[in-house]
């Protein structure tokens, strides 16, 4: 079976998630799809597997133009997708999970299905107990179950979205073995990943996505540098950074340890100087967000962690102590964590002002709100609800809500959803803060921005943290390699 995608376009509001994507995949191929988060990989896979429909473009299966209305429609045509988080029903037995979504009579033939599944599983050396409950299985076992289910339902094209997240090394080896074997039997395997190493070992071909575009293709043998350059764009000329060079430590981190069901970060030591900007790079979910939240007092640390801000030991202190010490956290999800939909701008400014008195000083807060609105150039009125503001204005509002003075500002993806101009403006505002001695630590998936504005950079990969690198002596290629997991010791 051959798949051909022709000029696929997909828009989500103003975002052009897939821009004129054309890709042909021949039978027996393991096709890698690489790119940063938000590059458009998953969107294309969802289109192919029927979860969403393309706005423009055609899908051809063996040179026949087809329309895929739904995931079950896709599966009928032999296209099956394995999701990052398995879409099954954990509190039910494996056998019942298999029978769901099956067409057939009122009384399904459980025994026959179980026998079929066992036979199929044996072929690949998987052991699947059809009477086990799904919630008792590991992520890897659930994945194996899902692969067998898709094959059993007749899939000839298997799409896997980041399948190696959360599975063990031996399960990964088994998975790769299986995929290679399926391809050798003439099936198509589409493997979506941001891990370059995996693409390089497994895939016959790789298509690289960036900003909704398919920017290039590569075949074995790969040159990692080329892939990195395709993924992150050409290295840009580095601009001027503020370069605060104070000797005063604002933040001292010793033996930082964070445990999470997926990641384990440990033994991070870092001193942050007054006015310093530190950029955190890495694929989403590599641990940088946990790190940032721990510094903000929003996540508990474990082990021998010691965390000092301006000399105050905040290690096991509640979040309110962090606020008192001048630590501020600016989340990426503005409507989820940053702002409060249903409250006006003015109400937000009241909440961040002095709230010790019983009654609200309406006049004072209105005045303060107006001043902030003009100072931060927010397009909105004091009585505008925050959800009515555009993304850029919401970000401005978040910055305007930060108290003064601050010791440390932590930002998740500060420029997400902002155009270039707003991004530059945002950094001007942050630089003003730096001049007064505030340290800034931020996460971004935009490497240029990290290189451009940071004094030092930390790269995260699977919970491992690189040594701090001087941004002035680092380039995009080096960062890209580290982000892809290359060059990490142990």
């Amino acid at each position, binding site marked *: 079976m051959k798949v051909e995608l022709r000029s696929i376009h997909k828009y989500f509001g103003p975002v052009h998630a897939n821009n004129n994507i054309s890709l042909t995949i021949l039978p027996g191929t393991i096709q890698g799809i690489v790119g940063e988060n938000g590059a458009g990989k998953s969107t294309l896979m969802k289109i192919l597997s029927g979860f969403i429909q393309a706005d423009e473009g055609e899908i051809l299966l063996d040179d026949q133009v087809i329309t895929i209305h739904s995931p079950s429609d896709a599966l009928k045509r032999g296209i099956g997708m394995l999701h990052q988080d398995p879409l099954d029903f954990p509190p039910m037995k494996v056998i019942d999970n298999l029978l769901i979504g099956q067409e057939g009579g009122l009384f399904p033939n459980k025994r026959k299905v179980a026998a079929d599944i066992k036979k199929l599983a044996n072929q690949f050396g998987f052991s699947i107990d059809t009477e086990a409950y799904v919630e008792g299985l590991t992520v890897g076992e659930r994945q194996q179950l899902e692969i067998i289910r898709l094959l059993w339902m007749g899939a000839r094209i298997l799409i896997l979205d980041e399948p190696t997240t959360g599975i063990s090394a031996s399960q990964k080896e088994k998975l790769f073995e299986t995929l290679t074997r399926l391809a050798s039997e003439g099936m198509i395997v589409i493997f979506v990943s941001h891990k370059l190493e995996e693409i390089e070992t497994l895939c016959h071909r790789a298509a690289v996505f960036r900003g909704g575009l398919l920017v290039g293709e590569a075949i074995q043998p790969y040159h990692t540098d080329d892939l990195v350059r395709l993924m992150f764009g050409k290295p840009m000329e580095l601009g001027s950074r503020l370069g605060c060079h104070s000797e005063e430590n604002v933040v001292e981190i010793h033996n930082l340890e964070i445990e999470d069901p997926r990641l384990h970060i440990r033994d991070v030591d870092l001193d942050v100087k007054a006015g310093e900007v530190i950029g955190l790079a890495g694929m989403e979910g590599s641990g940088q967000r946990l790190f940032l939240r721990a510094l903000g007092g*929003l996540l508990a640390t474990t082990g021998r962690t010691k965390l000092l801000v301006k000399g105050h030991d905040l290690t096991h202190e509640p*979040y*309110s102590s962090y*606020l008192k010490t001048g630590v501020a*956290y600016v*989340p990426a999800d503005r409507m*989820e*964590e*940053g*702002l*409060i*939909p*249903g*409250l006006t701008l003015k*109400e937000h400014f*009241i*909440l*961040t002002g002095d*709230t*010790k*008195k*019983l*009654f*609200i000083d*309406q006049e004072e807060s209105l005045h303060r709100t107006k001043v902030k609105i003009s100072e931060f150039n927010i397009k909105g009125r004091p009585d505008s609800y925050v959800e009515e503001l555009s993304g850029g204005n919401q970000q401005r509002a978040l910055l305007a809500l930060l108290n003064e003075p601050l010791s440390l500002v932590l930002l998740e993806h500060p420029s997400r959803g902002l155009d270039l101009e707003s991004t530059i403006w945002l950094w001007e505002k942050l630089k003003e803060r730096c001049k007064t001695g505030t340290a800034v630590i931020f996460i971004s998936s935009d490497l240029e921005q990290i290189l451009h504005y940071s004094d030092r950079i930390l790269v995260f990969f699977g919970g491992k943290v690189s040594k701090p690198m001087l941004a002035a002596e680092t380039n995009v290629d080096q960062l890209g390699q580290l982000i892809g997991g290359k060059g990490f010791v142990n």
Partner: protein
Amino acid sequence: MKSGSRWYRFGIQVAAVVLALVFTSIILLIAKAQPLEAYKNILVGSFSSIEAITNVIVVWIPLLLASAGALVTFTAGLWNIGIEGQITLGAISTTLVLRLLQHSDVSPAIIIFLAVLSGFIGGALWAALAGALKTYGGVNEIFGGLGLNFVATAMTIWLIFGPWKRPGIGSMSGTEPFANTLWLPTIPGLRLSWWSLLIGILALVLVYVLLSNTHFGLKLKAVGKNRKAASVFGIPTSNFMMSAFLICGGLAGLAGALQVLAVYHRLIPSISSGYGYLGLMVGMLINYQAIWAAPVAFFFAALNFGSIQLPIVMKLDSSLSGVLQGALVLFVLMMDGVRKRFEKKA
């Protein structure tokens, strides 16, 4: 555009009321009754005399307290369905104090004051139970509240037929009535007590001021609208949720206390009379805006009291008022959904 949309919203609300009336009329027609006559009887029952109007106010007072309480928990994003039980516990606590002190030398005024206070505390503690289950135990407040309502009812029945039963034999008519001296004074010849009315109105005004003009109210609102962001803002969300439960339960407890002190003068099995649920309905109907609580609660009270006429005059069940109240809430919520759909399309 702004004022236009306000009229538009108003029109939608009127449409909802009309639909609710139409719906109730259909029910009446199915029951082979004249809708217009039924509505007329309700109106006559509620407003035909000063006595009738004061009786509506007697119903209005607990409803006002329950609605005010519901507003506080709604603001914190909580569905305190346990108001009913909190009223009951208020009534029980009040009865307890009255029973303990009724034969003592303490002056009646002080006994009454202590009884009211005890009602407030009883309701607040019962709400704190639901609140603790929610905040620290992860039990949804709807389930917790509902469960506690049943426990409260069972407790009342047990007290009336057990430890607090009338001399001789327990009866569904409640405990032994208290002496006149322990009643909240009423207007001569009427069932209405100025004291009750004062407490009811004061409670609503306080809640209104609390929610619209204080930092506490704004923080509570922030917790209700987005708990995650509120905690990032440094608001201790658990404390605020617990406070909302305590205030709401306290107000509900006051309602229970007043039912004992000013209306029934004893503990009866159905002392909460559904005011807790009605209070929640008022809260939903007014879209959680305190300023409308008084008129809407009054309207509900009039429906409740007026419909007592129905079985007498038309041989209809008085639960018709419940049908109309429920239909109103459902249609108002539905029309609000319809409006939002249209606005999204436009």
